């Protein structure tokens, strides 16, 4: 063993490193980690306690009945208002208007869903935005789509 002194020292070093790691680990791991699985279980309650940002399907109806009814008549009936505008929380809090609801630029917003993409189902109405506008004899501007379509009821 007398010629294995360096090995013993190396092993000792390793043991020290492992101990430091275990100690550091003890302090680095948050309290509720591992209670139910390899995650911090307190984060579940924390998230559950947060206030929802989005509203429900009819959460605009109370104040914008006109838009809601109008939309329900057309092809966009099934779209959520929030998918084009923004989450309810930026606009309304405790039934009071607290901020402006963003209005999207049609040329961008319509493209989110209608710009032609290979990955979309074939039956879905898709267009190449620029071609479609040119075919209909218009030039591209931010709100060109609204000249012929209503955002809430596109066939109108």
């Amino acid at each position: 063993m007398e010629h294995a002194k360096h090995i013993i020292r190396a092993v000792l070093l390793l043991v020290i490193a492992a101990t430091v790691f275990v100690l550091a680990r003890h302090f680095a791991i948050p309290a509720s980690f591992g209670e139910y699985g390899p995650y911090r279980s307190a984060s579940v309650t924390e998230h559950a306690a947060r206030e929802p940002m989005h509203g429900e399907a009819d959460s605009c109806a109370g104040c914008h009945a006109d838009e809601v009814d109008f939309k329900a008549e057309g092809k966009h009936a099934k779209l959520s208002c929030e998918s084009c505008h923004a989450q309810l929380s930026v606009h309304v809090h405790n039934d009071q208007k607290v901020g402006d609801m963003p209005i999207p630029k049609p040329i961008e917003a319509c493209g989110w869903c209608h710009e032609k993409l290979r990955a979309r189902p074939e039956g879905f109405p898709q267009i190449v935005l620029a071609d479609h506008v040119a075919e209909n004899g218009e030039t591209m501007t931010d709100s060109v789509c609204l000249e012929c379509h209503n955002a809430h009821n596109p066939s109108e």
Partner: protein
Amino acid sequence: MGENGGFLFPNDLHILWQLMIVMYPYVTGLVAGAFILSSLYHVFHRDELRPIGRLALVASLGFLLFAPFTLLLHLGHPERCYNTLVTPNLSSAMAMFGFIYAGYMTLLLAEIWLVHRQDIITLASRSTGIKRTFYKCLALGVYDVSPESRKVDHGVLLILAGIGIPGAAFLHGYVGFIFGAVKANPWWSTPLMPIIFLCSAIVSGIAMVIILYSIGLKFSNRKIDAPCMQSLARWLWMFVLISITLELLEIMTLAYEAAEEWEIIGPLLGDQLAFSFIGIQIFLGAMVPIILLGIVVLMSRYLTDQIRNTLCFVASLLLLLQVFAMRWNVVIGGQIFSKSMRGFREHYTPGLFDKEGIALAIAIFVLPLLFIILFNRVLPVFEQPDEQLSTDTGTPSE
């Protein structure tokens, strides 16, 4: 919301695993490959490989040090990365990273330390001042170079390298497993994936060592050892053949079975990935080096050293490219088709200066090379036979 509306459908439109996730298996492959090559010498006593025994280990360490950079760049938030390291667990292949990385790093450091211990002691006794203290610390204060101590070193080294081989196979097999276990993706989900990854890792590791060895000796004005190069070529040839056979076998099975996934994988390989798969992974990257190395192996008697070295060097460069293309085809190829087999998305081209861009990918590739140069300043990566500075501990005759 992003270009296509973020959470709006369809959702398999985005390439989420980008260039850095191509780099990750590539770099860890170099780690595992170089390590396995080094154990051919340290464990299996292929003595003709002695000249690269250390280089392979140090190269492995260099790439291991920088492998996590790819993940850090991909994920962002490097300040949170300690979480994976302090909470490894066995329930997820990715969360095992902590165990595998730390274990492998320890092993590699220990092995490199043992291989260089004689040199450390010689350097400690030759130098003065801070330098001396530094080497003394590295030697852990023990200046024992007796034959008995070397015997001990040799024994420990054998055990470490013995653990290291399955370790390296694990490190890389597990990277392949991460892809192979994604059952929703027909192009990834095959039990063959870990083995394919491992074999191509060994190919890239040997190719890398050949290149580093050639360049390294060129700069130190020494001659390349012909038996060593010949042996490297032979091993490389064998592993390319195995690796390409497995890669083709997997595809042939898919094609022959012609199950529904072939409808999308066929066009994926023949059309979408025509350049990187057929062009690079199969022809330029595999067939050409197989011929070049075949010449070296089968006609070695008729070759001058210079021709042999050049053939090996060119073949190695092509193979590094091949393995990169293979990683690309797996990682990117697996994401450009729709998981519901509807079709393909547009091609993905990485940006130049993106977070997952080309410039950073090159940097991650170059940094390990700088590390090797730096390491060489502290401890010799190539043994110096003329100076008799050291006698390596790995030789079985001792």
